[in-house]
C-alpha cells in the first residue's frame, strides 16, 4: 500500500515536471518565434525607414522648389537654386546606353553557356563571368579612369567624331571634344558591370525550359538558333525581362564607377561624348561639401528620387521573375 502511494506520488511529480517543462518549452518557443519575427519585420522597417528618412531629409528642397525641382536644369550652389534634371537625365542616359550594350551581349553569353559551349567549358566560363560581378565597383572606376578613359579619348572618340558625328539625326550624339570622360564611357563601364547579373539570370531560366519542348522542336528540324529564339525565349520571356530590369536597377543606382568617368559637369548636352552627371555621382561628389541646409536637402531629395525609381524597377523585376517560377510550380 505504501509502495503504491510512493509510485503514485512519484508519477504525479513526473507529470508535474513534464507539465512544467512543457510550459517552459512553449514559453521559450513563443519567445523564439517573436524574436525571429521581429528580425523579419526589421527588414521591412529598414526599407520603409530609408524611404521616409530621405523624404523627410529632402522635404526642404521639395517645398522650396516645388515640382519644378524635377525639370529645372539649374544647379547653383552659390545662389542656392537646385534642379534635378541634369542628374536625372544623366542617370537615365547612361543606364540606357548600358542596357543597349549589355542586353544582347548577356543574351549571347547565356545562349553560349546553355546551348553552344561544350560541357567542360560551361562551368569555368560561367564562373569567370560571375567573377566580374564580384569585382568592387571602385576597381571598375579606377580602371575606367586610368585605362579606359585615355583610350576612349585618344582613339574611340575621334573615330566616332569623324564617322558617326557627320550622320544626320544621330550625328549630334557622337560629336564632341575627345575628352574620354562622358556619358558614353560611363554607359560602357556600366554595361560591363551589369552583364554578369543579366546573363546569370538568363542562363538560369534558360535551363528551366523542359527538354521535351526543345527536343520536339529539334525533331521538327529546327536549328539551334530557331529553338532558342522560338522556343526557349518565348517560354522564359517574363523572367528574361525580369533579369533585364534587375540589371537596369543596378545600372541606375551604381555610384563609384560612374563618378570616376562621368566628369561631374552640371550641363545638359545632347552629345554622349560630353561630361555629365548622374544622381548617384552628384551625391557622392558633393554631399560632404554641401555647406547649406538647402544644398544638403536637395542632395537627399535626389537620393529619394533615385530610391523611388530603383524601387519601382526592382519591384517589376521581382514580379516578372516570380511569374516564371509560379508557372513552373503550377505544372
Amino acid at each position: 500500500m505504501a509502495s503504491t502511494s510512493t509510485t503514485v506520488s512519484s508519477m504525479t511529480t513526473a507529470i508535474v515536471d513534464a507539465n512544467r517543462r512543457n510550459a517552459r518549452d512553449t514559453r521559450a518557443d513563443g519567445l523564439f518565434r517573436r524574436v525571429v519575427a521581429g528580425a523579419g519585420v526589421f527588414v521591412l522597417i529598414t526599407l520603409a525607414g530609408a524611404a521616409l528618412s530621405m523624404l523627410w531629409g529632402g522635404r526642404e528642397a521639395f517645398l522650396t522648389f516645388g515640382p519644378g525641382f524635377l525639370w529645372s536644369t539649374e544647379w547653383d550652389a552659390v545662389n542656392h537654386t537646385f534642379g534635378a534634371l541634369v542628374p536625372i537625365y544623366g542617370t537615365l542616359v547612361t543606364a540606357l546606353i548600358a542596357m543597349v550594350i549589355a542586353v544582347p551581349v548577356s543574351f549571347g553569353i547565356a545562349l553560349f553557356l546553355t546551348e553552344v559551349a561544350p560541357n567542360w567549358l560551361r562551368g569555368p566560363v560561367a564562373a569567370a563571368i560571375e567573377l566580374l560581378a564580384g569585382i568592387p565597383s571602385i576597381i571598375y572606376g579606377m580602371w575606367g579612369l586610368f585605362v579606359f578613359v585615355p583610350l576612349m579619348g585618344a582613339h574611340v572618340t575621334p573615330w566616332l567624331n569623324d564617322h558617326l558625328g557627320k550622320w544626320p539625326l544621330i550625328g549630334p550624339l557622337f560629336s564632341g571634344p575627345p575628352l574620354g570622360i562622358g556619358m558614353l564611357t560611363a554607359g560602357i563601364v556600366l554595361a560591363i558591370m551589369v552583364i554578369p547579373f543579366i546573363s546569370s539570370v538568363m542562363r538560369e531560366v534558360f535551363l528551366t525550359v523542359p527538354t521535351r519542348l526543345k527536343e520536339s522542336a529539334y525533331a521538327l528540324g529546327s536549328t539551334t538558333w530557331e529553338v532558342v529564339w522560338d522556343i526557349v525565349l518565348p517560354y522564359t520571356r517574363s523572367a528574361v525581362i525580369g533579369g533585364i530590369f534587375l540589371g537596369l536597377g543596378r545600372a541606375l543606382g551604381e555610384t563609384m564607377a560612374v563618378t570616376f568617368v562621368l566628369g561631374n559637369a552640371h550641363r545638359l548636352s545632347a552629345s554622349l561624348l560630353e561630361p555629365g552627371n548622374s544622381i548617384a555621382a552628384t551625391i557622392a561628389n558633393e554631399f560632404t561639401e554641401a555647406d547649406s541646409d538647402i544644398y544638403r536637402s536637395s542632395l537627399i531629395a535626389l537620393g529619394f528620387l533615385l530610391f523611388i525609381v530603383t524601387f519601382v524597377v526592382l519591384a517589376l523585376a521581382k514580379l516578372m521573375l516570380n511569374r516564371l517560377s509560379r508557372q513552373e510550380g503550377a505544372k
Partner: protein
Amino acid sequence: MSDVSDRLYRRRRLVNGFNLVASGLCAAFGLFWLVWILWTTLAHGIAAMKPGLFTQMTPPPGSDGGLANALFGSLVMSVLAILIGTPIGIAAGTYLAEFARKKPLGEAIRFVNDILLSAPSIVLGLFVYTLVVRQMGHFSGLAGGIALALIVLPVVVRTTDEMLQLVPSQMREAALSLGIPQWKVTLQVLYRSALPGIVTGILLALARISGETAPLLFTALNNQYWTHDLTSPMASVPVVIFQYAMSPYESWQSLAWAGAFVVTVFVLLLSVLSRAILLRNKVSHD
C-alpha cells in the same frame, strides 16, 4: 521547288551558324573585360606594393606613406557590420524559412529583402546619414559600420532562408517527434545542417562590403590618422582609394593602386573560398 527549299535551308543554316558564332564572341567579350580589368589592377598594384604599405599611415599630398590606418578602419567597420548584420539576418531568414513560408507577411519580407539586395548602396548611406550622423552631430566609424551592416543584412537573410529551406523536412519532424521544442530543433539541428551555406552567405556579404565605397563617404567619412575610437571619423581603404585616385599626385595614385590590389585580391579569395565551401558540402551530401 527544291531550289527554293534548298535556298531556304541554306539561309537557315547560315543564320544559325552566324548567331552561334556571335554567342561565342559575346562570351569572349565578357571574359575580355574581366582579364583586362584584373590585369590592370594586378600590374599597377604589384608595382605599387611596398613594405611600408601595412605599417605607415596615409600621407599628406606629395609625401610617402602607407595604408595602415585605412586597412585597420576597413577591418573594424567590416567586423562591426558583420556583428550587427549577421544575427539579425540569420534570425530574419529563420523566420522566413521556418515560420512564414507561404504567409503574406513572409512573402512581403522576402520581396522587400530582394529589393534591398540590389538597392543602390549610396541610398543606404544617405539613410544612415540622416539616422545616425545627424543625431550624433558628426561622422563616425560606428555610422560606417551600421551602413555596411545594412548591406550585409539582405545577403544573410537570403542565404539563411534558402539554406534552411533545403534542409529536409524529415529532419524537423524527427526532432520534433522526440519532443524537442522548436527553438532547440532550429538551433541544434537545422542550423547545424545549414551551417556551410550560411557561412558562405556571410563570406559573400564580407566580400561585398570590403569594396563598398558609396555608403562610407558620408557616414565614416575619412581620417588621416590611426583611430580605434568608433565615435570619430574613420578611414577605410575604398574611400582612401577614391580620394587618392581622383587626386593629381602620383604618390597618392600609386597608393590607390596598391589599395585596389589589396581589395581585389581579398574579394577574389573570399569568393573562391565560399565557392569551395559550397562545393565540398555538396560532395559530402551526395
